[in-house]
């Protein structure tokens, strides 16, 4: 039944969000900072954000522009997390006031 599937998916989404959060904390506590770690954390942010937007906010079924504008937040910010790690001097130069 469609409604059962819809609401049971929310249960699994909650479990996935819990697992990803615990995984992030574990990485923070144990792993040395590296490109892979930063990419993994940025990827986790993207997936968590999209799950909340699509499954809890229930935007998975709405007009593409609305869905895209919300999801865009969770494409751009993870990308900025990675770029800040990879190109700090370039971003510092871009944001220098004088």
């Amino acid at each position, binding site marked *: 039944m469609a409604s059962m599937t819809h*609401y049971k998916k929310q249960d699994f989404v909650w479990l996935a969000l819990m697992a990803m959060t615990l995984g992030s904390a574990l990485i923070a506590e144990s792993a040395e900072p590296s490109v892979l770690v930063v990419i993994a954390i940025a990827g986790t942010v993207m997936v968590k954000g999209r799950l909340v*937007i699509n499954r809890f906010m229930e935007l998975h079924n709405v007009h593409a522009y609305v869905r895209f504008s919300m999801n865009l*937040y969770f494409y751009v910010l993870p990308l900025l997390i990675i770029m800040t790690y990879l190109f700090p*001097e370039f971003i510092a130069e871009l944001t220098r006031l004088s």
Partner: protein
Amino acid sequence: MINIALKASKWAGIDSTDSRYDPLPKAGRIPGNGPVWVGIYAEMTEFALMFLIFFAAKVHYSDVFKEGPLQLNIYAGLLNTLALLTSSYFVAKAVGCVRMNQINKAIYWLCGTIAAAVFYLLVKAWEYQWNAEQGLEVNSSMFFTVYYYMTFNHFLHVAWGGGAILWAIFRLKRGGYTPQSHEGLEAIACYWHMIDLVWIIIFPLLYVLR
């Protein structure tokens, strides 16, 4: 854990087969109403500007931004993240219950949201106290200036978002939301999810990326 979640779903009557109500959101319809979406986009823009300031400050003060997260209590950040994600789940469940005409159970889910919000606020207050005992204050470094500005702003959003959830409980008790008409509840739910979304970004920026 999966069993607990599935049993919780069954208890909430989410798998009801009552054909009088449409248990799913209508395809293509944006949940909530226009004004709340103006608010959501405005709030997310405000936080986006804070994130941009965070990134700019991080590249200009790289040493203090490397040390800053190590000085924070990651367990406080972790507990707050788990509480907010769970509160968002509870709100989503409450909306589902109203669609199924399970009003009392929707109220229980929203009470769970309030409990999670209060837990968040208490943990955050304790974290600020813990920081103060370590000598970590707004002026300790650029990292802590950004940290306090961002987290206290978010703290205020959780507090008044909790007020909106209390209003939703009051309206539910008064019969203000029905399976056919619950736009106001959806609007409050979407606003609450927005608060959760912002924290999903704050947590790794301040506590995880070291």
